């Protein structure tokens, strides 16, 4: 874990370089003389509504950059500034409840009519549970690769085809086989950028390096049980702590806690859920600031 933390810190420092973001172009610079003259001849109210082609293109691009896909998990959305950025790659790493976040994101995307692809490298997706969680299975392409290379290739292909959401889930163990070169993640990020796809990578350890827009670290979860003593127990759910390790637009270091409940205990866990903070978004600690 210490190695991982050191690596993430390095990545974060690299990402702070201002050259990565393109400087915004002032509309004044590109405003043509013809357009200026046209605006001058029109009434102010009409001229204000006049938009040139280049301005429109920039506005559409800006809108696309700012578009987000909410995960519909309020604490996580708050941590990510509203949700997963479209046209970007977001990564969730660690031992926490990553797969529950994946299922919730799939449910959010498919419920609004978007096509989603799940690259399930560990072949652990349960269609029955996903349907119960609200995933529209008709809009979900389930891909089950067997190697790391196949996983990244499948993600690239589905992203380039036009799927609005592509999720790579690496399972709970480090996948065997050779590592894919870093260039593969760069290429995947470019596919997301050029096709406006939202790519979510869920892995037990950080994979995407500097290519991802945001990186969430999911800490080890804690199960919650209903019932005490000799009384029969029921698994109520699992809570996990999430930490924003890096983000290109937001300040990293914030943490939150999310709780996922068991389907069998949905009716009986309302009280238990209420006692757990769901939007515990704290500022970074002094130690985190120092690092």
């Amino acid at each position, binding site marked *: 874990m210490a190695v991982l933390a050191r690596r993430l810190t390095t990545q974060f420092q690299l990402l702070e370089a201002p050259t990565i973001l393109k400087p915004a172009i002032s509309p004044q610079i590109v405003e043509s003389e013809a357009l200026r003259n046209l605006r001058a001849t029109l009434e102010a109210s009409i001229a204000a509504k006049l938009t040139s082609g280049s301005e429109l293109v920039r506005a559409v691009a800006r809108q696309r950059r700012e578009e987000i896909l909410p995960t519909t998990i309020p604490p996580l959305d708050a941590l990510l500034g509203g949700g997963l950025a479209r046209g970007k790659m977001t990564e969730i790493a660690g031992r926490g409840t990553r797969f529950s976040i994946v299922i919730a994101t799939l449910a959010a*995307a498919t419920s609004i*009519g978007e096509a989603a692809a799940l690259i399930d490298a560990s072949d652990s997706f349960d269609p029955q549970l*996903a349907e119960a*969680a609200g995933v529209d*299975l008709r809009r979900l392409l389930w891909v*089950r690769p067997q190697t790391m290379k196949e996983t990244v290739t499948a993600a690239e292909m589905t992203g380039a085809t036009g799927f609005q959401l592509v999720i790579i889930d690496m399972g709970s163990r480090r996948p065997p086989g050779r590592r894919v070169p870093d260039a593969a993640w760069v290429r995947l990020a470019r596919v997301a950028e050029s096709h406006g796809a939202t790519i979510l990578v869920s892995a037990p350890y950080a994979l995407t390096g500097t290519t991802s827009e945001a990186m969430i670290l999911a800490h080890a979860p804690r199960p919650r049980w209903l019932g005490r003593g000799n009384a029969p127990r029921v698994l109520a759910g699992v809570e996990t702590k999430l930490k924003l390790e890096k983000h290109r637009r937001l300040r990293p270091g914030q943490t939150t806690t999310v709780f996922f409940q068991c389907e069998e205990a949905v009716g009986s866990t309302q009280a238990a859920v209420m006692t757990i903070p769901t939007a515990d978004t704290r500022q970074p600690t002094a130690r985190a600031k120092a690092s």
Partner: protein
Amino acid sequence: MTRLACFYVPMFVLAARLRSEPDLLNEAVGIVEGNGSNAHIVAATRRARKKGIQPGQSLAQARSLLPKLIARGRDAECERTAQEALLEVAETFSPRVEDAGEGVVFLDVTGMERHFADFGSGESGVGSRSDEEKVTPAISDTRHPTPDSQNSEIRLARAALRACDAISLPARVGIAASKLAARVAAELPKSPIVVAPGEEATFLAPLPLTRLSPELEAAAMLQRFGLSSIGDLAKLPESEIASRLGEVGRELHWAARGIDPRPLMPRPLPPEFREGMELEWPLVALEPFLFIANAALDRLSKRMEIQGFACKRLEFTLTLDPEGYDARGIDLPAPTRDVKTMLTLMRLDLEKTPPGAPVVGFSFVAHPDRPRRAQLSLFGPSAVSPEKLATTIAKLVSILGDGRVGMPMTVDGHLPERYSINVFSPPPPPDMKRTPARARGLLAVRTFRPPIPIEVTTREAEGDDVQIASIRSIADSAPPSPAPNARNRIEAGAKVEIGGTVRICSGPWRIEEGWWSDRPDIREYWDVELERGGVYRVFRGGATEWFVDARYEM
């Protein structure tokens, strides 16, 4: 008045071969028919003809004139597919097409010239699209003024020439009111030629009699009578010709006057597309075969594109050396025209089960289907292009194998591991954007496929219930991996080591399915949290068989 067009490919035997082997286009090539001492040239490229190679020469004579002559035998498969391709091009211009064989196709173009009318430079439409060049009357029959309809017909003929060029067949085009006149017009070297309606006799008059029907012996006899042109024959009385030459002479006289009573015999649309060729030498390696197959599939794809079809099933037959055939079929997950995808699927099939003998020929048959279409929305979420989706799915299937790509489906029943995979065909997206519903926040489980057998120690609990004290995965439970390169495979559950003392145990929950059958599936499920961490779903299948089938997401 009926207007007929004729597509004619000169030296069709050679053109069909060069279509399959375009590298030979600039070489001295001769097409040979017959074996041994009977082998003789039937067609030769321009370069060979310049060196004196002529049809009818024996191969030995040709070799003595040009030792470096590349000799190729007649390939029936090439000729058949070239003829099919020519017919398909004709079908893009008219629905009524007659197959006259050997590089000749007739089509009814009555009224079709309207699609090629000149709408002026500012107009957009089919006519202006095909009319990049200005119409030059010199190319058509120049002795008569060319009205607008004839200009349109010339544009149609030029578009046909371009379409034939696109499939690598150098065709000539003639348009006239009868099949005979259209064919004669197409055979003339200056193409395209449009014969004005009612001017067939005038058009034919100056041409030599051999143009009329080279096969007829009567034509030679008429030449001996001193008749040199078709016009000379047409001037003679029909009864005199008929009395001397019989019925053949009467037909010849009609033809000389431009009268052709034969109607167009349209062919039915083919249910499949074929490509193939015979190889010069047996192929024993996969790569050279795929190199040739790539070119053939490319031609197949272009032909399907012309007709607006995509391939749903690809069948291929390999001719083996010394004898025998190997026939195979590949069902594509969705209709596609992507050559790379089809080639990859073919490669995988051949790698899986090699033919077992050298390959000396092949034939591909594509069963067409309409590609998927969808109306895209302006305001809703963008839909995935059906054609791109079909290609992607086909590629993924070729890489990952069957059953690993598709739409997940739930199966009715009580057992949690049940699922099925169907063809991914998403419904159209909504017309307007929606707001996502708030997630239910359900805890996900990671399913182990197949379930991992475990050893369990139990302790007694209240009543008849059993509580689990500890679990341990059985070491030898991992099933053998079917993949040869198992070292690089991700094995989801096979090598997961699960074990430890149970901290909290919850259960059992009983499931019974198929109670009406002889072997009902009765299970008892527990949720167990281990001291070392992790919550698992454990079930007992029989009296002593225990499994872990899922892990609560940790």
